[in-house]
């Protein structure tokens, strides 16, 4: 009989703590499940491929390229991964008494999910955690920021596909894939623009037009086209006015999501078992919050 460690909240480790690595068969710290990935190939969790297979080692190994996004930490169901204030991600290695049993993975995974749901989060902690994690992404360039945004969407229950670079037919940064209602996402890292700007809104409108007219994803003409950036523009600005103008003129909604808000969506799904509502994204116009 497998004994799981008791879950505790810890602001230091950003999750449950007190456990060692269980060498989970489904490796949630490394890849999303088939269901989470939208049914196709499993999507890796780490945006910069900095976490590696534990099978040959004594637990997962984090390389120097880690950008401290916290995704693997919040994915670990037992808190064996921790994000310290001073350094990167630390791993509590497995010990002989606690390993995942072979053969009965479904029960094991169910137990992990229950374990995760037991964590008792207080009001305001979401915001603080999301804020702290997003601050780590302040200096990320496109090659790390874009996959981070993609994987956060996947973590939030909206599997995201990144079209290959140089595909002129499909220049949308990200597509939240769906059988009927795929949503395009324009991504701007903070290095490119401190706040979401007019240019990204213009690009989002073009994304909507191109997605609607070309055949690379099933779309709904009424659905929003999204922009993710590091921060929102001011409440009354050219950006917000242009979004209203586009809605009035063309009936197209442009939705804005800051990185903090995207973290909030992902954390709720990952740590509190929310299901990740698509309606919010599909009908979003202007800021998410």
């Amino acid at each position, binding site marked *: 009989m497998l004994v799981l460690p008791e879950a505790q909240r810890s602001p230091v480790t950003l999750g449950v703590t007190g456990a060692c690595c269980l060498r989970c068969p489904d490796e949630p710290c490394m890849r999303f499940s088939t269901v989470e990935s939208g049914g196709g190939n499993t999507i890796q969790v780490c945006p910069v491929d900095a976490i590696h297979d534990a099978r040959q080692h004594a637990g997962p190994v984090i390389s120097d390229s880690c950008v401290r996004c916290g995704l693997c930490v919040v994915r670990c169901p037992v808190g064996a991964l921790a994000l310290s204030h001073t350094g990167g991600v630390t791993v509590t290695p497995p010990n002989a008494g606690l390993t995942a049993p072979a053969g009965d993975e479904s029960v094991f995974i169910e137990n992990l999910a229950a374990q995760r749901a037991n964590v008792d989060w207080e009001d305001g902690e979401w915001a603080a955690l999301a804020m702290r994690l997003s601050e780590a992404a302040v200096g990320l360039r496109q090659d790390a920021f874009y996959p981070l945004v993609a994987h956060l969407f996947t973590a939030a229950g909206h599997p995201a596909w990144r079209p290959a670079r140089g595909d*002129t037919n499909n220049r949308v940064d990200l597509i939240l894939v769906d059988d009927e209602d795929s949503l395009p996402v324009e991504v701007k890292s903070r290095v490119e623009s401190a706040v979401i700007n*007019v240019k990204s809104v213009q690009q989002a*409108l*073009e994304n909507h*037009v*191109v997605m609607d007219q070309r055949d690379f994803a099933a779309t709904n003409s009424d659905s929003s086209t999204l922009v993710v950036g590091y921060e929102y523009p001011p409440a009354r600005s050219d950006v917000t006015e242009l979004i209203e103008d*586009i809605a009035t*003129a063309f009936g197209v909604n442009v939705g804005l999501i800051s990185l903090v808000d995207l973290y909030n969506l992902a954390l709720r799904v990952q740590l509190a078992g929310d299901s990740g509502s698509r309606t919010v994204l599909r009908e979003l116009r202007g800021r998410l919050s």
Partner: protein
Amino acid sequence: MRRVAPLLDDVVIPRSPIELGAERTLFASTTLTATGSSQFASACLGCPDQPCARFTEVELARETSVESPYTPDPAVCPTYAISRGVGGTMMVDADNCLGCGLCVVRCPVGAVYLDPYSAAAHVERPSDDHYERVTMTLDEFDALRIALAEGMAAETVPFADAGRLSRQMLRAAPMVEGAAGQRVLRLLTRNTFLLSGAARLKNVGDNNAAAELLVDAGDDLLVVEVEPSTDVPDAVRRVLAGCAIVIARLGANRDGVAAAVVVPRLPNVRVEYYRVAQNVYDRLGIAVYGVPLALLLLGIRAGGGDLARMLRHFCYTDGSVDTDAVVDIFGDVGDPAVVGLAPPK
């Protein structure tokens, strides 16, 4: 696929006299009167209001800001190459001359012409053999200029001149390309549309969120963007945002709004730009026309007025060009792709 406007019956260079402001008397007492010239209607009169170099306040009043007041640049010349010289007559700095012909069609008495070889503008200077220096009042000057202008009114000009257009392109294209050319191309575009009394221009809203120009072309509104680089897809996005603002804030009918992107040369037909433009037309109903520099130059020669309708007549959103329509309007200007009226093959 596209909208069609009526063909122009004739291409006529308008030579309507321009009113002199009563308060402008600076050079009126020292102007010159023509005694005849076989080639030119007149030498430079040194007009006090300098129509070849400056738009009047009345003309510029058509250009107004929707959101914030600003002072429009009165310059006719996109490179500020024409100015008043010694003796009160105008002169052109040939090194900076675009060869666009704006000053040529603005001169009320035909004293400015494009050099047939270099395509640079030249001002016919008065010579003592043919001109006589007289002193006259402002009213007398006004009457003289109107008489001279009427003498050359409704002159029909042949457009079948591929050589001239090619030489103009050779001169002008390098000066409107790249970041340095942006301001020049913008002023050239504005002035080409401003040339026509039919076009009403506006600077729409904020610079960050608006199109460069808004042309009121009769039934339709034309939102115009200027793009001096080859990165034209960005311009489609910008002009589309301009259309949204025009429709939402000015209450324009979506069916009556079209867009134009002014470029030094049209991109190759295989580039993404045309596919995006076609997608935009199919999804949003906004036709985005690529307007090459060569079309502006022909538009200037035709007085500018019907440029908005012209481009609609032979530009397709997919980048192809109706060659027959080009010939109908401008005469035989040669291979449209070679002179820059169509995308390169």
